[in-house]
């Protein structure tokens, strides 16, 4: 076991051979219509892509040598019911939900956030468990809490709640105190 005080994995904000990751992504998908929107807010870079192209984008982010996003940090979803003005493209696409992925590269020490809007009547998106095995439980949780179905997921069932629970609690229209007890009074 060694103790090391050198800075971890690579330069602090991307080394000289790669620019900020957002620029590389924009350049790659320049006229293809895959990218809906990008922004850089408070130092975080975000790219919004069409849900159908998510596998292509994720594969590129993982395998490209300048990007090298080897870790999928977080996968979650946001429900924008009646609040689509928070992100301008949501109203145009009539999207209620957005799946949010946070990726990190240990070697290059940079991060990116990928978002994919989904409409309420088409809550399907491809699962990225083929690219990062660790996305398994995160996708199950997004399914449990929001009802988003991940196509190609090996075992898509509820994880934090029980099978008999009906509904998806983190949706904005699910009341906070609506309990569905398995046993005991309906308190």
């Amino acid at each position, binding site marked *: 076991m060694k103790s090391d005080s050198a800075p971890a994995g690579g330069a602090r904000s991307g080394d000289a051979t790669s620019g900020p990751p957002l620029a590389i992504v924009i350049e790659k998908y320049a006229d293809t219509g895959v990218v809906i929107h990008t922004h850089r807010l408070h130092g975080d870079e975000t790219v919004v892509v069409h849900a159908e192209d998510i596998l292509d984008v994720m594969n590129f982010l993982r395998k490209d040598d300048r990007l090298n996003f080897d870790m999928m940090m977080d996968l979650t979803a946001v429900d924008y019911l009646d609040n689509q003005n928070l992100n301008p493209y949501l109203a145009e696409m009539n999207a209620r939900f957005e799946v949010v992925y946070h990726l990190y590269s240990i070697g290059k020490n940079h991060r990116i956030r990928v978002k994919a809007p989904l409409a309420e009547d088409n809550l399907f998106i491809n699962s990225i468990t083929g690219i990062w095995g660790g996305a398994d439980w995160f996708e199950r949780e997004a399914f449990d809490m929001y009802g988003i179905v991940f196509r190609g997921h090996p075992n898509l069932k509820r994880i934090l709640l029980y099978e008999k629970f009906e509904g998806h609690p983190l949706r904005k229209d699910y009341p906070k105190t609506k309990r569905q007890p*398995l046993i005991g009074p309906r308190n």
Partner: protein
Amino acid sequence: MGVIDDSEQAEAVLSDSVIITQLDKVVAWGRQYSFFLYPFITACCGMEFMSVAGPRYDIDRFGAALPRFSPRQADLLMVVGTISHKQAPILVKVFNQMTEPKWVFAYGACTVSGGMYDNYATVQGIDTLIPVDIYVPGCPPRPEMVLDGLIKLQEQVVKERQTNRVKGIAPVGEADDRIVT
């Protein structure tokens, strides 16, 4: 040695080696000072439970040191931490499996009333599922408070007759539609 006519004489003769008392009192004395805990630990209160069992706030002084992780061998079910609706059937099953006599100690605000988690997933107090003998609120309760609760439970136990207090199984079944919030 002649015939011993009354109890005073009996006490005078036997006082050094025999204690005369009632069976109920002896049994109650034994029960209060030898709880075998079943620590049903789920959440943050479990960390305070580790402290209560630790060297500084020693629960061993009160006779309640040995945790027994089998419901058949335990008599004090300490429900430590939030019980969610997913966990509730398991709590009831463990309670039902415990043998008589048994007591339930609701440790922490979440078991007393649901605590600050008034939401879709949390049981609003375990007394909606199983009969509770002592409620110790706090989030988490300080170890001194837990020991105070244990002493109060011991005072309760010492007054019991050994023949009553049959708790039986928990009086809940599947989710009951007749009871409305």
